[in-house]
């Protein structure tokens, strides 16, 4: 934001919260993600876009531990990015991460899914909403604070005895839930079953639930899918406030360009599992490769476009 003209000074290069390095994901013969590398800047809103089937959700599943990548390294840095020797040491000693006072590094590809959220603090939402439909809105947010509450209740022993310290912890958790309900404008539906909410509200609740687990990186899989334009605007405001008030970095997959171009600081474009563009929204918007991937080009025009691309790259490099 300070030095937009200098390409080397992008925040995601200086202070990445997550570095995806040479990520491969193969399902049998199918290469869903092919040598993907990109960085997510701390405090940035990063969008991962691409045509259907480009492998975006697969990347998400790798980051959040639901898939084990075939190859690659996913480095998540709390506080400050690790230095190269630190990173090499962690990688070589086979540990899942390095938690220290000044910096904690987690190698996400080595963590089981629940620890990606619990320890590394990467929360996610799902493309097809996954709420606990039979539980109330408030209960959904309480489940999200499971690990904190489990610690506070000393594995339920304090809670079983009804000790005051547990009641205080429970109250604090409730207040946090209420805070997030206010943020997503669902306070008056707190006692309704989550499955009864309209679609847009379910999307917002899922984001609130993810935020209740105190993430430092929030991964949103198509948060604007199925929202009307007004709801999309509200979503933009919500995501901005999440970043501004909580310093949570956001990585999102989105097809709705009004959302992507409006709020992202950084856009990564994927096509057939390969990165085809990476940069600020404006740079990506004008990238001929992106236009070709999205709009498609004729068989005859391929060479033409490629030539044009090469020319662009040549001029870009020279300037």
């Amino acid at each position: 934001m300070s030095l937009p003209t200098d390409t080397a000074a992008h925040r995601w290069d200086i202070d990445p919260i997550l570095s995806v390095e040479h990520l491969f994901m193969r399902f049998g013969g199918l290469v869903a993600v092919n040598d993907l590398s990109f960085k997510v800047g701390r405090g940035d809103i990063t969008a991962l876009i691409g045509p259907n089937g480009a492998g975006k959700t697969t990347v998400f599943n790798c980051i959040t531990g639901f898939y084990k990548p075939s190859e690659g390294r996913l480095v998540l840095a709390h506080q400050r990015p690790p230095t190269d020797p630190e990173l090499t040491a962690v990688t070589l000693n086979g540990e899942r991460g390095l938690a220290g006072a000044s910096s904690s590094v987690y190698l996400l590809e080595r963590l089981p899914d629940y620890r990606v959220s619990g320890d590394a603090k990467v929360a996610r939402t799902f493309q097809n909403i996954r709420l606990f439909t039979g539980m109330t809105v408030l209960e959904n947010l309480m489940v999200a604070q499971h690990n904190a509450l489990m610690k506070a209740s000393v594995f339920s022993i304090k809670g079983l005895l009804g000790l005051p310290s547990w009641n205080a912890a429970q109250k604090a958790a409730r207040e946090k839930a209420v805070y997030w309900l206010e943020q997503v404008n669902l306070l008056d539906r707190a006692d309704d079953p989550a499955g009864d909410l309209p679609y847009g509200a379910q999307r917002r609740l899922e984001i609130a639930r993810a935020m209740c687990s105190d993430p430092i990186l929030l991964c949103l899989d198509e948060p604007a899918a199925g929202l009307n334009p007004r709801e999309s605007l509200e979503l933009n405001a919500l995501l901005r406030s999440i970043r501004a008030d909580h310093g949570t970095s956001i990585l999102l997959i989105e097809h709705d360009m009004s959302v992507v171009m409006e709020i992202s600081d950084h856009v990564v474009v994927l096509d057939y599992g390969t990165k085809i563009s990476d940069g600020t929204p404006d740079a990506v918007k004008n990238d001929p490769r992106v236009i070709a991937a999205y709009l498609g080009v004729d068989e005859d025009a391929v060479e033409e476009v490629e030539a044009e691309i090469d020319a662009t790259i040549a001029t870009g490099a020279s300037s």
Partner: protein
Amino acid sequence: MAAHTAESASAENAAPASPSAFSHALKDAFFAGLIMLGLVGPLVGFETVIRDGALGLDYRPLTVAVMVAIVFVGRLILNLTVWSPNRVVKTRTGPSPMARAVTAAGPAFKPALLAFAVAFPLIAVLSQGGLNESRYLIDLGILILTYVMLGWGLNIVVGLAGLLDLGYVAFYAVGAYTYALLATSAPVNDFFAALIGEKFWADWAFWICLPAAGIFAGVWGMILGFPVLRLRGDYLAIVTLAFGEIIRLVLINWVDFTGGGAGIASIPRVTFFGIPFNASEHGFAALFGLKFDPMHRIIFLYFVILALALLTAFVTVRLRKLPVGRAWEALREDEIACRSLGLNTTNVKLSAFATGAMFGGFAGCFFAVRAGFVSPESFTFDISAMILAIVVLGGMGSQIGVAVAAAVMLGGMEMLRNLGFLKQFFGNEFDPSLYRMLLFGLAMVVIMVWKPRGLVSTRDPTIYLKEKKSVSGDLVKEGHG
């Protein structure tokens, strides 16, 4: 107002349509009767008899005529009433009258049920006119409460965590054999005799073994839990079923340790916290200045199982409001979402298995002390199926529903034994107890048709902000392993 117009409109419609509707109903009933005649004609109409040493045929036209007439008339009545095309179907808005009645009686129902359970021995004694006469009723009460407790225990695994467990009887067996083996063990007895006193182990065995039985069963719950962590749905059900059978087969075949099929007999009886129920001067009756009666022990057993069942309910209700209980329910709703929120689903599943198994172990320990005898025959799949049926009928996850279902199923089964009055209709050779299981099965089918999600299908939220609204059963998932 609207209903009134609808009614008058339907009456107008019905008037001209009536003759054709009636003839249609008659025709339909006639064909139904014809089909019935074709079915029962050969099946019921002929009877093979042995006449003078040779096989002969008897004809039963009257029985056939009665059966066909029942179908014809029944079908006709149904056609004219329930299935009538002119019938105005009352559309219901809001909860059914039944649900409203339950909501209205809800706050009073639980205390009333509890008060009845506490006062039950007194009621039984007063109504039967004596301690000994009330034995049957109190034994029945003990049986029902044992199943209530088992139902509540299994409810944690099946109802809350959504893990279908068909081998719950294994934990019941582990609890029972823990007590049976420890209480009859000579080395343990000698150890305590040397340490504290000669009679100590005989007097205190039950009270010391009760927690031990729960812990052992809980550990076995975890041992079962580990291999089935990755299984879901049908596969989980089959493995747990096999686990139940394995435990039983081990009990039968490990003769040196468990006594094999002959079981373990003369297990020490329950004591009043160290005071035995016997006629001696140190017995319960003498100490409390009562006349000795063996029923004291039975009534005490009733209160022991009542206390154990209430403990199960209390712990379950408490746990539901704690993170671990919410995690169980969240697991039932959506396992993947659980993992995305940092819940270690392995631990969540194991804790559900262990907690459920622990209560099964308590109940098993109680079973052993009540019967004074355990054998593998007491721990067959039937028991698992019965407990599961209680949980499903009661409404998965509901405490009160499970209690009512246990009382209805076991009490109802017992009541069906007392259908002697039917002999007046069907003659002295009629044995009503033979139809017990038939009626029982029919009742289960009726309940499942009428209330497919069990007696209490709604779910109570564990926390609320302004107003406690129960969650409709349609939204609550059943879990899939």
